[in-house]
């Protein structure tokens, strides 16, 4: 019999409440080395979870362990843990290099200058490294924060909405950096409210909705659940009744509702429906005036998952 290795980070029946408000409700999850995305809409409780992982919040109940130690009240853990907060605040009077260097010195690293140089190179900020951060764009500040957080090459890196404010090129470059760190056996945990970010980076995912764990595990399995769910489209054409009669015969359409000026079509297969509607319109001899998905908000995707 083989024994499961100790997870790098463990949440065990963790809840956190502020007076009467429950921010996180009874969540258990083991974070293994690799990239794990904490996905959820704004206000879902992602930051609260990340702050508990970083030892910055005491769980109201349950346990949070990082590298075998309780996260709360163990500042020595920061030798092996890095945190990139969501807040944009930085020491605006410092340059990115001074920030990384101060970080390296506070970690007591033997060669802080070299560590700062490596961290700055990781986030490709060399060209602007000596300018005070008060003049930086949001994306540059984000990269400076990341450089300061990985100056000590942490085993566990926690990032709260790390791609906020970054442009597509910076986002790709940061994703590549995090993938590389994960490939070295580190545990990377990041939060996001953007599905595509998590999809492109995370191996494992935690979907949080209203403080509860809506889904967790392999991202692709969860993604399938998301894409296989019924999709609702608002459709308007020059002759809705004729088009509806044709659409209802399609295998990928599970229902059509005609309500005065409005036609709502429910499909079981997003890709097949969007690819096939043009044919249906042509066959019906009508003209399509409007086609829009009505339930594509992240909230509705999460709500669907909760009910699965």
């Amino acid at each position, binding site marked *: 019999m083989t024994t499961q290795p100790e997870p790098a980070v463990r949440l065990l029946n963790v809840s956190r409440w502020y007076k009467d408000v429950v921010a996180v409700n009874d969540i258990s999850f083991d974070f293994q080395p690799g990239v794990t995305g904490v996905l959820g809409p704004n206000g879902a409780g992602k930051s609260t979870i990340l702050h508990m992982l970083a030892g*910055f919040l005491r769980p109201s109940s349950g346990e949070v362990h990082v590298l075998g130690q309780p996260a709360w009240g163990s*500042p020595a853990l920061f030798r092996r843990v890095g945190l990139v907060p969501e807040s*944009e*605040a930085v020491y605006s009077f410092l340059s990115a290099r001074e920030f990384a260097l101060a970080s390296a*010195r*506070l970690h007591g690293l033997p060669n802080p200058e070299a560590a700062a140089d490596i961290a700055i190179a990781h986030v490709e900020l060399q060209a602007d490294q000596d300018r005070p951060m008060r003049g930086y764009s949001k994306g540059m500040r984000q990269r400076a924060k990341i450089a300061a957080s990985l100056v000590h090459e942490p085993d566990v890196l926690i990032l709260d909405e790390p791609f906020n404010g970054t442009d597509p090129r910076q986002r790709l470059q940061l994703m590549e950096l995090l993938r590389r760190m994960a490939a070295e056996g580190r545990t990377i945990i990041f939060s996001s409210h953007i599905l595509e970010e998590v999809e492109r980076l995370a191996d494992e995912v935690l979907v949080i909705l209203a403080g509860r764990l809506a889904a967790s595990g392999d991202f692709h399995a969860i993604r399938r659940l998301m894409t296989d769910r019924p999709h609702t489209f608002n459709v308007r054409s020059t002759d809705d009744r004729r088009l509806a009669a044709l659409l209802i015969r399609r295998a990928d359409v599970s229902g059509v509702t005609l309500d005065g000026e409005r036609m709502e079509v429910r499909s079981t297969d997003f890709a097949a429906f969007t690819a096939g509607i043009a044919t249906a319109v042509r066959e019906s001899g009508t003209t399509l005036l409007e086609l829009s998905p009505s339930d594509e908000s992240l909230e509705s995707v999460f709500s669907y998952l909760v009910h699965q």
Partner: protein
Amino acid sequence: MTQALIMLTSRQLLGRRRVFFIVLLALLPVAVALIYRFGSDRLDPLPVEFAPGMLDALMLGAVLPLAALIFGTAALGAEIEDGTAVYLLTKPVDRWRIVLVKIGVASAATIAITLPTTIVASLIVLSGDQAALTLAFAFATVVGSIAYCGIFVALSIKTSRALLVGLGYVFVWEAILPALFAGTRWASVHQYMLGVADLISTAPRFALDADLSGVAAVVASIVVITLTTVVATKLLERFEIGQRL
């Protein structure tokens, strides 16, 4: 590690506007001393009577506590308020070390501004005589700066309204209560400073209006500085990010 802490705190604390305001404030006793000395031909009251009263009321009673309040609450409180404290608190640095550096830098900044102006104002009024009195207020300034900064650093971890609470302590608790309730002198840094000045000065005790003996004031100062360091450390150890950051 400590060097980086000192660098971050100093650069954060010594913003141009903050320092300019406190320097301006600290020049007030010097201005009053100049007016006293050169404002009229006859010196009334006598310099040896005027100096203790002026330095007590203006420097120890207003300028020094205000300077310590501004530096003490900003040393860590400003980082907590603007969110940058997270970078400090995610480092494997003992919390007592952070607290000591914060109190140390805030005290050094307060002393650097108030000590020279105390000495200059005293020398102007006394025309360089009564060196013991000048020395007494110089020592009192140093002790008071450290004690106040300890209190205000701890206060800034506990509450986001540290500035307001601090003003209440200085201008209500310290200014009014010791006159009404004798017991409150034990919880007044102002009284510690007068006690320390009394210990060193050769001036009569009534001239300094000290309610505590010199030894009691020194002991009380040490207790307050130690206690506020311990309390601030405990508060920082239990600090939760959702609290204020």
